[in-house]
């Protein structure tokens, strides 16, 4: 297995990019620390041949923890706004802030596919679902956002 330092060097930018999309620039650092601490504790992975998919699975779980913690802290309001609220900081990619407002499954599938650059098969492995379900979640997420994908 490659030394952890090389793993960190090779995956650093991908994990950072994924987390900036998943939780925003400000929260990305905490999630990044938690992702690599968890990765080091579990390193080397026993079954995963694909290290990118493995580390983004961990990063996705940390991002989910972050969203749940934020939801617990959120103050309930009387009226739910009709459209997803844009919670991005100024200068940040508005589109990813909108992705963050999607339901859990769709958000995770869209993030892993388009910010993490995983294949649908790898997304499925990360989410513990079938490839078809991963594809559907990503598709529904995009439809909800009325987004086209440019690659």
């Amino acid at each position, binding site marked *: 297995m490659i030394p*952890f*330092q090389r793993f960190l060097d090779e995956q650093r930018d991908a994990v950072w990019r994924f987390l900036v999309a998943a939780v925003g620039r400000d929260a990305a650092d905490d999630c990044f620390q938690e992702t690599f601490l968890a990765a080091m504790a579990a390193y080397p992975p026993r079954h995963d041949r694909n290290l990118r998919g493995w580390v983004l699975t961990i990063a996705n779980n940390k991002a989910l923890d972050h969203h749940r913690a934020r939801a617990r802290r959120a103050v309930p309001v009387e009226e739910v706004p009709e459209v997803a609220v844009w919670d991005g900081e100024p200068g940040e990619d508005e589109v990813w802030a909108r992705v963050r407002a999607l339901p859990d499954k769709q958000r995770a599938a869209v993030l892993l596919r388009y910010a993490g650059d995983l294949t649908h098969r790898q997304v499925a492995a990360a989410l513990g679902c079938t490839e078809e379900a991963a594809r559907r979640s990503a598709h529904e997420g995009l439809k909800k956002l009325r987004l086209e994908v440019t690659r």
Partner: protein
Amino acid sequence: MTLAPPAFDPADAAAAARRFTDAAEPDVAYATVDSPVGLLVVAATPRGLVRLAYEDGGVDAIVESLAARLSPRILEAPARLDAVRRELDEYFAGRRRAFDLDIDWALYSDFGRRVLQATARIPFGATATYGQVAARAGNAKASRAAGRALGANAIPIVVPCHRVIGTSGRLVGYTGGVERKVALLRLEGVEV
């Protein structure tokens, strides 16, 4: 509206990785240290210094070997090797005659360890023969085995195998090349 991967600043990712390294507790930490005998790679476990290598073969090869022999949870974490770097700097500047560092002897068999521990007790500026080191390690007849153990010394300079020479005063070999053995002995004031 399009969905391209988010823009990010690689400097931010690098800074996050540095913060991770500062907080992480790897099984093995390593760093590079400049010295008059070339660039050195030093590595430590929580128990102490475990490896000092001349960089000749490349840092990557040394780190990969450590990952295979000790643990893949290895990180470049220079802060964890501050004491090692400081003592080496002092040694090369002529301000330190003995190293006061914890050593992790994990990489050795019993006899090999005893040979290297006997070697570590040879004082600055002195020399010993392979036979003498073998005797101090508990087997006077094992000078060949002592030679092999010294050839496998993973912590040269700090475990001063350069102070071990042939019976006739011949320098014999050295893990980093005989010219380095000469340089280290001269640094310690030994006529060679």
